[in-house]
């Protein structure tokens, strides 16, 4: 005698298959998607970040074609739950239950919706459990250097990452992780892209390398690299990381982590103009050994 409805079984199989897994900075995510079409479109984007552990978080992406959120932008905290609305997405993140939901109007915004939910969860979990900082920064691997390149919107992160295409490897122009759990800081790439990441930098590649410097950018007519006072560096980072300190408990941990960051990594103000001579200047200023003759 059958005890279950076969059609219900097929439904369950279909529902279970519409998901993807990923791991970022050692945090595992199971992301439920609206249907198999979404999975087919999105899962390949994250193939370099496979879920190699039990998921720590469950993130649900909800498709709402009637969602109309133009120009709305807000965030609100209620205990462990954060609700948000920005750039056409809305949803919530529950830091205690480790669940998140992001609503988006179309599959076109699917990757961004995934990365919005995963990114916020990752930022807080990395702080609390991995002694790592998620930074609004570009990551550039160049001549043995792992450069963490931060600055406010428009400061030049994407410009510098684009300039690195010819002589190094930009691993991301928007979000990277600095792992501070070991004796030396590590730069970890993420698959999280920005709203304005240009196509040539829209690569979701997994890289891990020693972090060697934190550069805080400013456009200028000439090149200059100057060490920054720790407090100035922290204030500069806070300009773009205010979301990390909106909760008192997170603010405490964030400040501890940033203190560790600036103790273990040289921090510079880099004034630059967007020309390839940047790299010769940086090689001299940072004392990077010359390239081996090819």
């Amino acid at each position: 005698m059958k005890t279950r409805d076969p059609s219900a079984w097929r439904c369950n199989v279909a529902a279970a298959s519409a998901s993807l897994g990923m791991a970022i900075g050692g945090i595992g995510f199971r992301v439920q998607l609206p249907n198999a079409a979404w999975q087919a479109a999105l899962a390949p984007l994250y193939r370099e970040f496979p879920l190699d552990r039990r998921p720590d978080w469950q993130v649900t992406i909800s498709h709402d074609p009637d969602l109309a959120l133009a120009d709305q932008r807000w965030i609100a905290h209620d205990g462990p739950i954060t609700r948000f609305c920005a750039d056409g997405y809305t949803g919530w993140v529950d830091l205690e239950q480790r669940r998140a939901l992001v609503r988006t109007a179309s599959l076109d915004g699917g990757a961004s919706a995934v990365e919005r939910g995963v990114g916020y969860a990752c930022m807080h979990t990395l702080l609390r459990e991995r002694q790592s900082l998620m930074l609004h920064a570009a990551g550039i691997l160049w001549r043995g250097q792992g450069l963490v390149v931060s600055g406010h919107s428009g400061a030049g992160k994407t410009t510098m990452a684009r300039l690195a295409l010819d002589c190094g490897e930009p691993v991301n122009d928007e979000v990277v992780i600095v792992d501070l759990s070991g004796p030396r800081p590590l730069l970890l790439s993420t698959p999280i892209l920005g709203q304005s990441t240009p196509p040539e930098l829209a690569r979701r590649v997994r890289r891990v390398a020693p972090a060697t410097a934190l550069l805080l950018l400013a456009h200028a007519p000439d090149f200059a690299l100057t060490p920054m006072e720790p407090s100035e560096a922290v204030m500069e980072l806070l300009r773009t990381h205010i979301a990390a300190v909106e909760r008192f408990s997170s603010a405490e941990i964030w400040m501890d982590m940033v203190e560790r960051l600036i103790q273990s990594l040289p921090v510079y103000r880099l004034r630059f103009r967007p020309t390839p001579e940047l790299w010769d200047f940086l090689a001299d200023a940072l004392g990077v050994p010359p390239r081996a003759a090819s």
Partner: protein
Amino acid sequence: MTNSSLERPVHAANVAARVYGSDAVVISPDQGMVRMFNPTATRIWQLADGSRSVEEIAVALTGEFDVDLAQARQSVLRLLSELSEKQLITWTGA
């Protein structure tokens, strides 16, 4: 604000702060505000830990900075008044 000689300033419970080098960075998540203090304000902030009165903080400053007690007292009162208005410190021990 209060300035009873018996009262002692203490950091508000919902404020996160760290001293980097000689400057303090103070975050008030409830108000969504971030501030950086100069070295003198940072020292007063450090001394305002709930164990000292305004007078005791002023006396401590005269031993660390080139300032007389009257000037130190005035500076401490002015800064603590501002911090109290911004809800970054409270008063204890009245």
